């Protein structure tokens, strides 16, 4: 076996342990496609790594954590249920490429509410603007956060080839047992709901995938809504991001 082969096999171990930097992960995955020896090493070492969690001190998960997770899951299930029995089924024949469940869910909700009369009522904490385009083609857009509800709140959109994420810090828990919901708005049209419902982490941060394409969308909004989400925003937006 050559020195190069040993190097790749060592990289397999580091990969399984989560210790390979991202660029080396991609290189290793490409190598694995064409190297049966390294694939065998991967299969051989994986059970040792899979066993490692068993070595930690067993702890009880806090009951409140269960409540939070189930509240969000149930909210999303209600939304999916509202989309109808076919929402999770693949059509036998498709005339056009299958759209994601979330996209179909979004499309099923009728157009509603005319452009939210929101901006004028907001005290905006952060100026709106495109910040930067990163090395990996991710464009960062700073969002406005309602200063009254979240004095220390900050939020941004990360728009990349693989989709868009909303990343926020300093947000309060949604009031009154509500959850946050992401909305997409086209210029001069009503805001459209998405299936993206989320709760903030204990430190007030959140990172949520924005469903669907931003093509034609000029604003991404976040409001606090009842569990299961709403068809129409029931509150002023907490976060407002202009995509262009």
């Amino acid at each position, binding site marked *: 076996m050559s020195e190069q082969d040993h190097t790749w096999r060592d990289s397999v171990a580091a990969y399984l342990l*989560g210790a390979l930097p991202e660029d080396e992960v991609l290189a290793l995955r490409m190598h694995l496609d064409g190297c049966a020896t390294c694939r065998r090493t991967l299969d051989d070492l994986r059970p*040792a*790594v899979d066993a490692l969690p068993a070595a*930690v001190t067993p702890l*009880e998960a806090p009951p409140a954590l269960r409540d939070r*997770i*189930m509240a969000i899951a149930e909210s999303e299930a209600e939304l999916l249920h509202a989309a109808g029995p076919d929402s999770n089924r693949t059509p036998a024949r498709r005339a056009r490429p299958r759209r994601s469940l979330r996209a179909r869910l979004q499309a099923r909700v009728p157009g509603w509410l005319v452009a939210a009369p929101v901006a004028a009522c907001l005290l905006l904490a952060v100026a709106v603007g495109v910040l930067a385009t990163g090395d990996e083609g991710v464009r960062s857009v700073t969002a406005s956060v309602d200063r009254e509800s979240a004095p220390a709140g900050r939020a941004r959109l990360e728009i990349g080839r693989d989709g868009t994420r909303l990343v926020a810090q300093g947000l309060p828990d949604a009031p009154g047992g509500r959850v946050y919901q992401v909305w997409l708005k086209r210029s001069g049209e009503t805001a459209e709901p998405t299936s993206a419902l989320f709760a903030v982490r*204990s430190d007030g941060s959140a990172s949520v995938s924005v469903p669907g394409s931003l093509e034609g969308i000029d604003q991404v909004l976040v409001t606090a809504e009842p569990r299961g989400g709403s068809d129409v925003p029931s509150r002023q937006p907490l976060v407002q991001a202009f995509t262009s």
Partner: protein
Amino acid sequence: MPDLSRLADEELMHFVRHNDTSAFEVIYDRHKGAAFSLAYRMVGTRNAAEDVVQEAFLSIWRSGARYDRARGSVRTWVLGIVHHRAIDALRRSIVHSKRRASDEGLEERFESGERTDAEAARRDEARTVRAAIGTLPPEQSRVIELAYFGGFTHTEIAAMLEAPIGTIKGRMRLGLEKMRAELRVAGVTP
């Protein structure tokens, strides 16, 4: 509707894929302890561990279709997701510097008190895995510890231990090979 609590994890995943929250709840209850324990071991504070577990299980809820039983048990899949999320948390935040600062000693106060047969079997497995790690030369167990539980990259570990990256990666492989052999002898892995 079958009694979900009697179904195997792999069967429950069928229902989770169809957005059944009751099935998801059973999966959560079966693996919440292991998930929280691993997350806490990695990020070192209770709040951060809760965040990691919340993100991991919501990811599982939303992507249940990605579970492939040919690649291992649901438990292994769940804990793999928790591990990835914990590494993400460690690398994107200041958790690294804060870890184990405020919650040190908390383990004793909320250690699991479960005494079911399944728990007893897991405790046996835990002893075996710890024993297997204990057979490793210290330089091998150290790099495995820093990588898997510490979330450090090989580059960071090499800098920490003042050793070449190649040496660090070699220790990882040798350690895992030895561990695998020990676990095979003990009957924990095939």
